[in-house]
């Protein structure tokens, strides 16, 4: 049985002779080179887990209700010490995201506000599930939207889709091979003095095994091979870029390494956990998380330099938070949120979207920032305009965007 470039063919032909494995790592690199020529745009998707509060991430200081809704956690006006960083007459950037302000001013960072979907619900688990599988309100969808996106673009090798995460993100569930890792450093077997024999016999065990474990084992071995031959993935950052010492920093540093190594990577997912679920003591939690996020994104932009023309970074979360603060100097689960974008094709320097306002009658259920852009429109725009996905209808079953938010040119 040989390692077929199309995993779907491989899975269908699963009744196999167990012995006589023909694994040719060089063929993977050939395919990687083919893939790189066939379109090398990269979508980097950051998922902030926990429901990140868009109303303080990009705060509408110019909206008459902002400060009355948030008497304690409202951020200072632009110009005040420690206050918001002015993006325009209505919106300011959270001060801890300061490294992104110059990128915004230079037109390389943009915002889409009041994005989301009411059918996600306010349960973390359900909202993440519905968003990542791309079917709000419908349970049991067995593939993720990024898996469906990957299926539509050229490139089939193990580094085509990468996720920096402890587990496979739901966005990637499905037939496409995905390299999921917490870190790509030291990605090799620890079999001193018998490494080649270990690899050969592991192949014998895993290559014919039809179970989910078998599939993963084959991905592991493919990844080991590719990464061993591509040490530049872990090279030092370029242009003096300094990443923060947090998971989002180490992940984006390795993401930049993957992009620079030109292995044919098309989508990269970074699972950002932290203190975003700010039911209490929001001020401090946001400061910590946004400091790391801002530094990591700015370092990524600096590290890649001109390669950022081929990259779009999209930062989202599963839902926003209540417009008013709660009794614990925090906020509870809400609806509309803000997305951050970076990249050469991003129409930066602007806050996109249609602002619904924060008056009581304008809030969803009198509590949440309303949603005026469906997240599926934003995700589809990135997939179609940037990645080159042509079968847009397959991305979000049962939904066809009528328009794109216009964040990506």
């Amino acid at each position, binding site marked *: 049985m040989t390692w077929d470039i199309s995993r779907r063919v491989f899975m269908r032909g699963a009744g196999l002779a*167990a*012995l006589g494995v023909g694994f040719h790592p060089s063929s993977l690199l050939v395919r990687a080179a083919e893939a790189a020529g066939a379109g090398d745009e990269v979508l980097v998707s950051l998922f902030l*887990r*926990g429901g990140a509060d868009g109303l303080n991430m990009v705060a509408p200081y110019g909206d008459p209700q902002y400060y009355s809704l948030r008497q304690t956690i409202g951020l200072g006006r632009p110009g005040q010490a420690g206050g918001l960083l002015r993006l325009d007459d209505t919106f300011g950037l959270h001060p801890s995201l300061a490294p992104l302000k110059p990128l915004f001013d230079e037109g390389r960072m943009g915002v889409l506000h009041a994005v989301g979907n009411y059918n996600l*619900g*306010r*349960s*973390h*688990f*359900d909202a993440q599930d519905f968003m990542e599988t791309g079917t709000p309100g419908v349970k049991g969808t067995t593939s993720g939207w990024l898996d469906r996106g990957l299926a539509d673009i050229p490139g089939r090798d*193990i580094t085509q889709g990468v*996720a920096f*995460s*402890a*587990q*496979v993100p739901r966005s990637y569930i499905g037939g496409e091979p*995905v*390299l*999921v*890792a*917490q*870190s790509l450093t030291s*990605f090799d*077997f*620890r*079999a*001193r*003095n*018998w490494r080649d*024999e*270990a690899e050969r*016999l*592991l192949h*014998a*065990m*895993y290559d*014919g*095994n039809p*179970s*989910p*474990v*078998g599939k*993963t*084992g084959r*991905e*592991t071995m493919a*990844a*080991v091979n590719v990464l061993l031959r591509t040490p530049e993935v872990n090279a030092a950052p370029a242009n003096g870029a300094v990443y923060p010492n947090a998971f989002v920093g180490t992940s984006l540093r390795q993401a930049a390494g993957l992009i620079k190594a030109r292995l044919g990577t098309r989508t990269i997912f970074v699972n950002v*956990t932290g203190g975003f*679920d700010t*039911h*209490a003591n929001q001020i401090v939690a946001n400061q910590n998380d946004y400091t790391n996020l801002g530094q990591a994104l700015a370092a990524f932009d600096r590290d890649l330099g001109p390669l950022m023309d081929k990259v779009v970074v999209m930062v989202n979360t599963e839902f926003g938070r209540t417009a*008013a603060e*709660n*009794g*614990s100097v*925090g906020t*509870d*689960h809400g609806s509309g949120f803000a997305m951050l974008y970076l990249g050469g094709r991003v129409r930066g320097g602007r806050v996109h979207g249609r602002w619904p306002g924060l008056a009581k009658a304008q809030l969803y*259920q009198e509590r949440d920032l309303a949603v005026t852009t469906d997240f599926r429109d934003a995700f589809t725009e990135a997939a179609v305009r940037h990645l080159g996905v042509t079968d847009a209808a397959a991305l979000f079953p049962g939904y066809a965007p009528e328009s794109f938010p216009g964040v990506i040119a």
Partner: protein
Amino acid sequence: MSVSPFENGPRAQAAHLLNRIGFGPRPGDIGRVLAQGFDRFVESQVYPDADADVRSRLSGLQTLDYSTARVLELFNADNRTIGPIIDEFNSAKLIRAVHGTNQLQEVLVDFWFNHFNVNLNDGFVRYSLTSYERDAIRPFVLGKFRDLLSATAHHAAMMYYLDNYLSTGPRVVGGVTRLGLNENYGRELMELHTVGVDAGYTQQDVTEAARVLTGWGIDNTGRSGQFMFRLANHDRGAKSVFGLGIPAGGGQEEGDRLVDYLADHPATAQFISKRLVQRFVSDDPPAGLVGRCAATFQGTGGDIARVMLTIFGSREFWDPSVFGAKTKTPLEFVLSALRAVDAQVSRASSVTPVLTAMGMPLYQCIPPTGYTNVGVEWLNPSSHLARVNFAFDIAGGATLAGITTAPRSAAEGADFTSATSVATAVADELFGNRMSFESYEAASRVAAGGSVSMLTRALGLMLASPEFQAR
């Protein structure tokens, strides 16, 4: 000996039972279980006696008995004392899981802690974690669900982790009415702990539940760290939560009524049963068994031991198609590997980084959903690589602080100069001979000679095999 994927004889059945009721066989366990008989073995697990051996192994870990107040006292005097306290707490878990005779009890402590998850890294939880597992989880894992639920609801760690200690009714401050409600615990009490997200409750019910629970908090987080109810913080208005009506003017008893109401709710029987069947039988829990477990749950007032008997006596549990079909979580893999090499554990510090590398840092699950019980969700290349490397490490007798291993015992009676002999012995001792021809044959093809022993390589491969990643 026949080795095939369809070997479902008594040894394979015993291996299956040991893999599900506990953390996997130690060398010799299959024989012992067969000698005892499955029925008597299951009975001894569901109604366990005290374990003197484990008690003796834990006797040196004095901080296990510390109250939260004692932990805080030590920490306040010297910040550095909390590290060793957490180390002992982690070590106790490992010692119990690797050495304990009462395996089901340890699996259930893990299951129920996960169900009522709190995060070690969340502020005050750090100081109250020892008490939380010892006082709110462990005593109730095979008892009545309502007691377990109530114990977690009355523990300061849960009040802190889900922010309920900050939640108050409306208060007038400086002439202005301030809303003090925090709905985090009210939501998760229903969504994650009892009836489940599909039970049909509304956002309104979540808010009302939170109102019921206002005033449930902590006396202080810096000295005693005990649960405390404050009437002054309680919203005394009338409430209606998911069908439970509560008249105005009440106090703490409202929350106790809500806890009882949710424990008794039919949706809870269904939700809990589904999670138990998912953990013990299949990632995709068979509906018939879930239904029968829910019926047992409801008919016995939530008796967890009786539900376990329903599971272990079911045809679904003993169906050969579920043998070896559930992927081990990183914790289950590491524990089963340590047991497989007859590990002697005194400290956990060398193992906790391994679990972190596999994506399952011990006691550090951030969201209240806890770690997933769906085995396949743990599979990914870097986690799998970490498993393979751990298997190679312990088969090779790598030095792990606080742990000694005896890899030879996994291949008891084998000719250690013959890879075939080693593979045959290991397949028999640890797998009950239920293993694919490919895996067995690969391990037996380890070449003679070389600087790495045949045992290390053949056993390492067996522990790294696809079959050992599942249970």
